[in-house]
């Protein structure tokens, strides 16, 4: 079953067109990795899926479980079940991490017709996930991402993912700035979410993260289009021969 179906997507940032007729289908329960050189449009693709204001969609469509989300507000897409783990999560001084997450979770639960969690119920849930990720308990009371190290920010993204339980998870350069221990902890958190139902889109420059999160498909993005799709074996070829060899094959 196709969870996310991106059809002939064209998008620009400012005056520059970045995505030029991109087609991509995410299968239910599968891990899709997007690789490509700098400037290929990897981050633009992730932003287009979640409805970032910087992106103007010029053409094509994005279907989530058969329904177009192209014109939805970012919060509506999130409540539907799409989650982006940011490459550089923004710091928001004064917004308590736990309060923020409970507000987000309850917005989603209301959308799904479920009862909101009260503070005590939510804290129990959050504490459990903090322990799993090896995060300090003070993450509950600290301001959202303020003064966090690079590793703490990425773990906090994964914490949000675990709590919000999205159906499509986009991981934009999740491995950047992480040491081995942090990478392992983050990967374990991600792998825990693999339940045969959720779809993952892992955007990365390097193959290192794919040692920890085994992909089902590798897509090579170049100049705003997917130029090759293959199995996990493509990673080794890219490592040895670089992107140019793939592009030249076309």
């Amino acid at each position, binding site marked *: 079953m196709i969870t996310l179906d991106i059809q002939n997507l064209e998008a620009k940032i400012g005056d520059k067109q970045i995505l030029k007729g991109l087609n991509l289908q995410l299968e239910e329960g599968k891990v899709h990795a997007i690789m490509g050189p700098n400037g290929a449009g990897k981050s633009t693709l992730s932003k287009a899926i979640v409805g970032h204001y910087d992106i103007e969609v010029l053409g094509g469509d994005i279907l989530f479980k058969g329904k177009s989300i192209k014109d939805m*507000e970012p*919060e509506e897409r999130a409540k539907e079940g799409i989650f982006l783990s*940011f490459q550089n999560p923004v710091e928001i001084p*004064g917004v308590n991490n736990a309060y923020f997450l409970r*507000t987000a979770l309850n*917005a989603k639960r209301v959308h799904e017709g479920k009862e909101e969690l009260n503070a005590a119920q939510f804290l129990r849930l959050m504490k459990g996930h903090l322990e799993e990720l090896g995060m300090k308990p003070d993450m509950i009371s600290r301001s959202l991402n303020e003064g966090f190290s690079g590793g703490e920010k990425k773990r906090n993204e994964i914490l949000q993912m675990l709590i*919000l339980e999205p159906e499509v998870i986009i991981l934009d350069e999740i491995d950047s700035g992480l040491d081995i221990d942090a990478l392992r902890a983050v990967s374990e958190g991600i792998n825990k979410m693999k339940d045969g139902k959720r779809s993952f889109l892992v955007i990365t420059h390097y193959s290192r993260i794919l040692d920890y999160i085994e992909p089902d498909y590798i897509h090579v993005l170049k100049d705003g289009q997917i130029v090759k799709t293959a199995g996990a074996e493509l990673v080794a070829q890219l490592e040895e021969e670089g992107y140019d060899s793939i592009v030249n094959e076309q």
Partner: protein
Amino acid sequence: MRLSDFKNQSLEELASKFDISPNNKALKKFVEMGGLPSKKSEAYRYFDVESLLDGEYESLDYTQKVITEGEEIVIENGVIISAPQGLRIYYESCEQIDNNHFDPLYYLSHALYPRTIKIEVDGDAELKIVHRFTKSYAIINYRIVLFNQANRHSTIYEHFEGELVQNSLVMYGYDMHIAQDSSFRVVKVQTMQNQNYSMLASHKINIARQASCMFKSFDLGGDHALQLLKIELDEHAHIDAQHLLYLNAEAKRGTVSQIIHKRQNSTSNQEAKNILDGASRGIFDALIKVEHSAKYTKAIQNSKAILLHEKAYMVSKPQLEIYIDELEASHGSTTGQLDPQQLFYLQSRGIPAVEARKMLVIAFANTMMETIRDSRHQELIRNEFDKVFYSKEN
């Protein structure tokens, strides 16, 4: 009484009209400074003071009343009506009027209220002062002199209540004398809303050697209000002045201040956070002056403003006036809108745009509210902020 009727009057004429001696020091200083301020006056350049002075107000009788025992000091229309038992609080002529205050109304206020309310704060006290106003179309003018004791640590929580204060002009202020080696904290919370009243609060704070003062104002209500602060620092003295301002509709409010480093090794930290909605105008016109005798001063000054509406306008004017080289000083000012990246981040987690916007505004204010150590009082300020902010938003 119309204050503008006293424009361009000689000392003798004013003394006669106010029925006070022409030798009154405050009145003399008021006349020396050119009398009533106008829009050309430095202190009121960005504040429409003339329309306030032009209003017709009833003059009040400040006859002393019997002070009943209560948990807090209540000053009703400029007269003490209640105070905690054992507190030394009385009326006395003010002997220590500042010689060089920048606000002419500081002197007029003293001249018109010659027997000031004097409060001597004993020991490590925590006091609450409630300013209560029950008169409409009145000029309510009074002065408070505060003393604390050396080596003591005190806190004053200042609140305002207005039952019937429509179209009144409140002129009040402190002369604070912070004793050597002591610490003194003042937390002012002003939330009176929609009363079409105006307030001019002209203060003078002297901070003695090795003393420390924290002055935090949470200015969340009122149409026209200005606090005018003059602070003088002795050797190794410290002031931490923080101002949170929230305005909407056509309100004009803010702070005009002078922090003067008089002696060496004194330190100051002044921070203003301003949230402006509607067609409001915020004012932060603040000078830090480091005199020749104030070597090794450290002075930090910063103002940040968020404009929530295209018609909102912030006057932010941090200034440093420095006469020595041996110091550390910095000042800065930023005015902008909510950060779109922060807004998007919250939305990307499913929080609706309107809620995300509120969250960011409250977060901006939170960084100042969370510096209040007393949790009960912090909660009270948060509630007051939520009340004024959400009542407008909804």
